[in-house]
């Protein structure tokens, strides 16, 4: 059984999956507002600190460093605010949810512009990842460790037509690596999908989504037979 994550381009002229009849079982949404609030939450205390330093005549080096850090947060804040003005949230529509082990599920990525943008074909990168995460205690320290057990990248070309960007990708969840989503206190298995709609400055955007993989085997694998431990050649 191959570990395949493959993609196909959606096209308005009929190749690939018909987006008008796409069967949506679940929608995940990534919103820029989290960056906005995050930057505001970190940036505002820095600005207050800078004000206190300026008034009290503190260390010049420290003030310069804090000013640079503050500027970075302000820049991300402004970029996120501008992004919210231009584009709606990135949505991923899944034909089946939750995902199954050994299954290939079509997913449609949708992003709608809030103002008029020219039509374009845009390359979109998809990165699916399965990661084991553990937390352990050494003496009085609590540490974490992560291991990526599966990762596949793919690129498809999506179409931006009539201020609406769409691309379709087939997401394959392998049955021979990783595990269904596990969420215990100290031991987890997480699946994520990262989408980067890019290379055109008007839409460049990375979005991360947590996937749920159920403890359910795709029907196509119900008739295969595992070999007992030790019987493998």
């Amino acid at each position, binding site marked *: *059984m191959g570990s395949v994550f493959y993609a196909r381009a959606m096209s308005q002229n009929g190749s690939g999956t018909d987006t008008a009849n796409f069967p949506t079982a679940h929608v995940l949404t990534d919103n820029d507002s989290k960056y906005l609030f995050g930057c505001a939450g970190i940036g505002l205390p820095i600005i207050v600190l800078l004000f206190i330093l300026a008034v009290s005549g503190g260390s010049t080096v420290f003030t310069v460093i804090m000013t640079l850090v503050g500027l970075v947060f302000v820049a991300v804040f402004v970029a996120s605010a501008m992004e919210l003005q231009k584009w709606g949230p990135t949505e991923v529509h899944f034909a089946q949810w939750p995902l199954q*082990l050994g299954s290939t599920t079509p997913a449609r990525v949708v992003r709608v512009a809030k103002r008029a943008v020219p039509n374009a074909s845009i390359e979109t990168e998809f990165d699916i990842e399965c990661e*084991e*995460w*553990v*937390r*352990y*205690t050494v003496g009085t320290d609590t540490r974490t*460790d*992560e*291991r990526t*057990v599966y990762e596949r990248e793919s690129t498809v070309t999506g179409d931006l037509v009539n201020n609406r960007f769409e691309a379709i990708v087939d997401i394959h969840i*392998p*049955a*021979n*690596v*990783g*595990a*269904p989503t*596990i969420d*215990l*206190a*100290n*031991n987890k*298995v997480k699946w994520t999908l990262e989408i980067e709609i890019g290379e055109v400055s008007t839409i460049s955007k990375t979005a991360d989504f947590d996937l749920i993989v*159920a*403890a*359910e*085997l*795709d*029907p196509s*694998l*119900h*008739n*295969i*037979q*595992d*070999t*007992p*431990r030790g019987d*493998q050649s």
Partner: protein
Amino acid sequence: MSYDPNLSIEIEHDITEVGDAFACTVRRSPSDGETNAKTVGQVRAVQIALVMTTEGRGDVDSERIGETSLPVDEYGMASGVVHLVVPATAPISYDGALLRIVYRIEARTDIRLGRDQHSSAEVLVVPVGGAGVYRRPHPLP
């Protein structure tokens, strides 16, 4: 896996899917020293549970699922069939890079003023549709 000669677990199928149940027969017979008048009535119960435990680098997450008990007669004998349901949302048996998930059926004899007896047997919890496929913990080869 541990085994006490006086406490046996017979599992009908040691592989089951999440949402399904393990059926097992648990028998407890008194040891040689338990049948005299002084020890009668000391065995309080036989407790059976499906136990999920993690192994590996992370701290242990463990859960006792579907704990049940068998009645014991005054001579410490018990026998019965129990069904231990695996919740549909439970993790499956897994052998990963940093962590493993292991399931055991554990039986314990609760003895008053005595050392408890333990027996356990490892079982496999597999995904829905995987009962005829898996012979070892996920992932498939």
